Every structure is written in C-alpha cells, then in structure tokens.
C-alpha cells in the first residue's frame, strides 16, 4: 500500500470513529428523550411515587435533588473558594504544597461509592446525623471539593499579574486585592465551573445511597416549618434524589410502569444537565462580554 493510500485510509478511520461518537451521543440523547419525554407531564413532575401501583410521579425526588443541590453548594462553594485561594495565592512552592496538591488529586479520584461509604461511617453513624439531606450534602461536598478547588485555582491563575500588582502597589492588602480585584476578574471562569459542578452534583447517586438514604418520608408540601419531620424543608430528614430513584426503580422497582418512570426520570435528569450545561456556557459568554465589550 502506498503512503498516500494509507494516509487516506487512516483519515477515513479517524473520521469514522469521530462520527461514531457523535452518533452514539445522538442515539443516547434521542433514546432517552423519545422514550422519556412522552411520560413527562405536570402530574409526573409533581406527584409522589407509587410503590406497586401505576401512575407514580417524581415530585418529591425532584424537590429533594434541587434542595440537596442548594445545600451542597452552600457548603462547597465557600470551602472550595477558600481552599482554592490558599492554593493559588498563599501556598509557597515546596514539599508541603506539593503534598497538598497530591492529596487533592487523590481525593478527586476517589470513587464516589467510597465517598458515600465514608459518609455512612462518619457522618451518618459517628456524627449521628442519620440518613438525611444534610449527610448527603456533606458527602457531596467531600466529593465536589477538589473540583471546586481546581476551578478556583484555574480562575485565579487566569487573572493578569498586572492587575494584582497594580492593586498591591497602591498599598492594598493582599486579601483585599484577592477579594476586590482578582475574584471579580476570575468570576466568569469560576461561575462557569461551578455551574458545571452543580450539574455533576445533581446527577450523582452512588455517594448518596448510604448518606441521604433511599427513601423519602411522606412530605407535606404545605408544611414549611424546617424543623418538622414531614416538612420538605427539613434538612435532617432522609431524602431520595432523582438519580437515586432512577437506580432504585431499575433494580427493584415493583410498579408496573417502572420502565416508563425510569425513562421519564432519566429524561428529566438529562434535561436538567443540559440546562446546567447551556447555562454555564451562556453565563460564561455573557460575563466575558461584559468584561471585554468596552475594549
């Protein structure tokens, strides 16, 4: 075979494989949406699931997922920002910093099921928080922190040195410089990354099986007292999220329409992830524009 033919052949193979990926993606999305969207209705999104009867919904699960997401982000974002700022601005190069970096890397590659088990052992049992939204949020924080640290570091390292120097040269303290000059400039990167991280949290299930639990108590959506056990706002109640629900009905669902419910719930989950993705892009672009438009 001549070099030219080989070249053409190799190019064809590469293009074909790339095409297959796009097809797989299209097939995947198409399958979930076609299978699932038909089942999605207002009733499906708002009503409670049925164990053995048809017609169950995913209302509480959807609410739990969103609530858990908010709880998790409230804990993760400040901690991740703080740790990221430390790594990017305060850590001095050397053995200790290298070790911390290695540790963060290790944490980011821990399987989420291991994080969940750690949560079960320490948060649920030792701290006595039980299967609860709060335990789940803490486990997800552990799971999400390394990503948040990396996002923050990435954002801060993108700030031009001239901006930082200009502020310091005015006799502004380092902390104030970070808060008032550097963080606003790195905001597009940090915000985009955070939204994507939120998407990851929304779809996570393995870390939640043994922390937030696999069941929801009967929720009374008219009870807004966060301390009452039947209130949806109570962070110390067990809560099955949408992703966990999909897993559960697939492995032990008894309702006759379990496959449809799984498809519908998957479609909702995918749509949420899509929304997070598009939102991240849109926010990133919008903020970028805001900063550079005047140039």
């Amino acid at each position, binding site marked *: 075979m001549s070099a030219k033919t080989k070249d053409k052949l190799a190019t064809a193979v590469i293009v074909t494989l790339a095409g297959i990926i796009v097809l797989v993606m299209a097939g995947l999305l198409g399958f979930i949406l076609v299978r699932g969207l038909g089942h999605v209705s207002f009733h499906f999104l708002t009503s409670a699931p049925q164990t053995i009867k048809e017609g169950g919904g995913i209302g509480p699960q959807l609410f739990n997922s969103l609530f858990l997401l908010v709880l998790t982000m409230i804990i993760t974002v400040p901690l991740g920002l703080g740790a990221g700022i*430390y790594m990017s601005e305060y*850590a001095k190069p050397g053995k200790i910093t290298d070790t911390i970096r290695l540790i963060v890397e290790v944490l980011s590659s821990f399987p989420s099921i291991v994080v969940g088990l750690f949560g079960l052992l320490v948060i649920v049992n030792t701290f006595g928080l039980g299967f609860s939204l709060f335990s789940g949020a803490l486990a997800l924080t552990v799971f999400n922190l390394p990503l948040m640290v990396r996002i923050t570091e990435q954002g801060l390292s993108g700030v031009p040195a001239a901006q930082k120097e200009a502020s310091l040269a005015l006799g502004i303290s380092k902390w104030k410089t970070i808060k008032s000059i550097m963080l606003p400039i790195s905001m597009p990167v940090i915000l985009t990354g955070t939204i994507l991280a939120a998407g990851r949290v*929304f779809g996570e299930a393995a870390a939640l099986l043994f922390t937030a639990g696999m069941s929801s108590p009967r929720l009374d959506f008219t009870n807004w007292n966060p301390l009452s056990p039947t209130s949806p706002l109570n962070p110390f109640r067990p809560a099955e999220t949408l992703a966990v629900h999909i897993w559960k009905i697939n492995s032990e669902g008894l309702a006759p329409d379990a496959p449809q419910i799984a498809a519908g719930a998957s479609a909702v989950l995918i749509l949420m992830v899509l929304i997070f993705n598009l939102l991240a892009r849109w926010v990133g672009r919008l903020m970028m524009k805001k900063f550079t438009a005047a140039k």
Partner: protein
Amino acid sequence: MTQSGRKQKVKQHVIEEWTGKIVTSFCIVLLVVIIFSMVYFVATKGLSAFFKDGLKLSEIFGTTWKPDGEPPLFGALPFIIGSFSTSLLAAVIAAPLGISAALFMVEIMPNIGRKYLQPVIELLAGIPSVVYGFVGLSVIVPLYRDIFPGQGLGIAAGATVLSIMILPTITSIATDALASLPAGLKEGSYALGATRWQTLSRTVIPTTLPALMTGIVLGMARAFGEALAVQMVIGNAPHIPHSLFESTSTLTSVITLSMGNTVMGSMQNNVLWTLAFILMMMTFVFVFVVRWLERRAQR
C-alpha cells in the same frame, strides 16, 4: 494623616491579612483532614475483618463468595477479576475512539471538531451515571442478548457502558496533549514530504504517548470506581464468568448491593469494607501511575 491615625490603620489591614490567611488555611486544612480521616476510617474498618474476625488474606483471594454458607466463604476474587476486566475492556474500547476524536479535533478538522465534537464530548461527561446504567439496561443488554448467547448482562455490557462514560476523560486529555505540541515538530515532518498519517503515526503519537496513556489510565480509574452504572448491567452473580456475556459482579457492584442489607459490625459487613479498602488502594495505584506518566510526559 496623623500619627495615631496611621497606627489605627496598621492594625486594621494587618488584621485583614491575617483573616485572609486564617480563613483560607482553615479551608485547606479541613480538606486535608477530610482525606486523612477518610483513608483512616476506611482502612481501619476494612482491615477489621482480618484483625477482629480472623479472616485470612488467602481467603479473600478465594474464588467462592458464600457469606451465608456453612462455613461462610468470603472469596472476593470474582469481584476483583470483574472490576479489572470491565475497566480494562472499557479502556480498550474507549482509547481508540477517544484518541481518534482528539486527532479529529486537533489535526484533521479543527473547525468542525471544535464546533460539534467538543460540545458532544462535554455533554457525555455531564450525563449522570445512573442514566448510562438505565440506557445500558434498556438498549445494550437486550442487544447483546439477541446477538450473543446468554442474558446479555455481564462484562461486555458493563465495559460498553463504561467505555462511553470514560470517553470524555481520554478525549480531553489527548486533545490537550496534541494541541500543546510545538508546531515545528509537525512542520519538520511535513517538510520532509511525509503524509499526514506518517506524521501522526511516527512523530505526533509517539511524542504524546505518555500523555495519551495518562488519559487512558485516568479513564480506567474512573471505570474501576464507577458503581451504579456497572451494577445495573453486570448481572450481579458472585462467580467468575465463563464468557463476557455471563452475569458476574465487580467490587463496586457487590458493595452497592450488599452494604445496605448487612448489619454493621457483622463479618460479612466487615468484608464489604475490606472490598472498599481494596477499591481505595487501587485509587492510590492509579494516581501514582498517572503521576509517573505525567513526569514522563513532561520530559
């Protein structure tokens, strides 16, 4: 500014600097404490089967898992084999796809690649694992059941699902490696009259090989630790399969299924923690292999 005014000022900004240092150090210390306590708790719990229940190391590498038997047998080799074979096979499927996608985006059609392929890969990365499991269960398993003998569940189905899940990892690292290649390297090869494929296969791929391997190992690590998607399509039979299309289990799948059904502190439960401990140790191995490859890539 008066002298006393200046003194006041000293205090204020010094306090501010300390606030910053303390707040951020606190965050990082917390992170470090979390990781160390994680390793500590999982390790002590994972080793208690050996120390408290008298499990022998040879027992855990036995081939029969019968926790309810008389006497109970805790041979975890089927799970270990299941984990390794699914993640290896997933990497074997995903590596050519991922590297091709990267080559396509960097070398062949950057415009189309960045516009269409990039978002597709990013989306794949964002899809939750339970959704992959669900699709695997409703599409891939029936497909394999129709084509091959057996129920369709098993290593092949698990590896297929995992390969799509780890594709983004492999692709994005390969893309970065290819894009950061100095332009002179390729131009030198083209200047000698080499075709694109000759340039890619003789210059570009060998130079970026350590980085490409990094991506593949990271992908494998992710596949190894993935729990729910695999659990849904692997079949969960606790023995070593005779074919790729026969039901089996992985470390993660058996933990997922049994952890909730066993009593904390019982021997079976402790052995499950031992499996979690093995999973964690494998994470360390993967991280160190990745570090080693990264050092090679920098050279």
